[in-house]
């Protein structure tokens, strides 16, 4: 993800301001690039010392499933990056319960520790945010 961290420029004054950023991930990995490029933004946001949360709902829950092996499609497996988020102090990962269950998944299927919450709770979480980015 070296390209992702290139080009950080803080020439404008945004120092000190901390906002709550929520990244809403609703798409499956690999079929499209949104999951990967969303992760690149997440890493940058952390570098700006913002308060970052990630929500996985609908097919987005597939992004954090264990056991991805991408050699056969000749695409880079970026799922280990989710495990690296902790090192950037990004620890608020939320999975919506119904999305998980209707896909036959359970908490132990995920590659990182996530908090499984209901749609009700997810809706409450959204309300507390300053900036919501969805890809």
């Amino acid at each position, binding site marked *: 993800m070296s390209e992702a961290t*290139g*080009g950080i420029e803080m020439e404008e004054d945004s120092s000190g301001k901390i906002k709550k950023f929520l990244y809403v991930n609703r798409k499956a990995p690999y079929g499209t690039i949104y999951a990967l490029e969303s992760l*690149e*933004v997440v890493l*940058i946001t952390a*570098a*700006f010392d913002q308060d970052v949360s990630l929500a996985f709902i609908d097919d987005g829950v597939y992004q954090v499933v264990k056991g991805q092996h991408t050699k056969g499609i000749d695409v880079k497996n970026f799922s280990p990056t989710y495990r690296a988020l902790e090192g950037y102090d990004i620890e608020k990962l939320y999975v919506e319960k119904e999305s998980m269950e209707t896909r036959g998944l359970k908490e132990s299927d995920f590659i990182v520790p996530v908090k499984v919450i209901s749609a009700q709770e997810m809706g409450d979480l959204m309300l507390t945010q300053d900036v919501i*980015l969805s890809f």
Partner: protein
Amino acid sequence: MMKFGILVNEGPYTHQASDTAYLFAKAAIEKGHKIHRVFFYHDGVYNSSRLTEPPTDDRHIVNRWQKLGKDHHIDLVVCVAAALRRGIKDENLLEGFRISGLGQLVESGIQSDRLVVFGD
């Protein structure tokens, strides 16, 4: 009067996202709001190609962004990482756009009153 940031995630013509973002930006300006930056990410980077040549009876999405940017001092930023893997470089970048890092998007989120996302 508010300060808006805009994120465009899709390329011109293929998806309506760039059209809607443009018409939203224009309406916001007309109402007296400020668009401080439009950030082009994912396929959105294709909105900056100076080689774009639509049929003559069609809108010119790329030139339209350029003009809006010039007329209203909007910072038109194309994400470097997204641009490189999609073949957008200074060589084919239209004047008025600039290529920079994702930090510019985060900054836009921090500094604007609202960040509005247009995509697919």
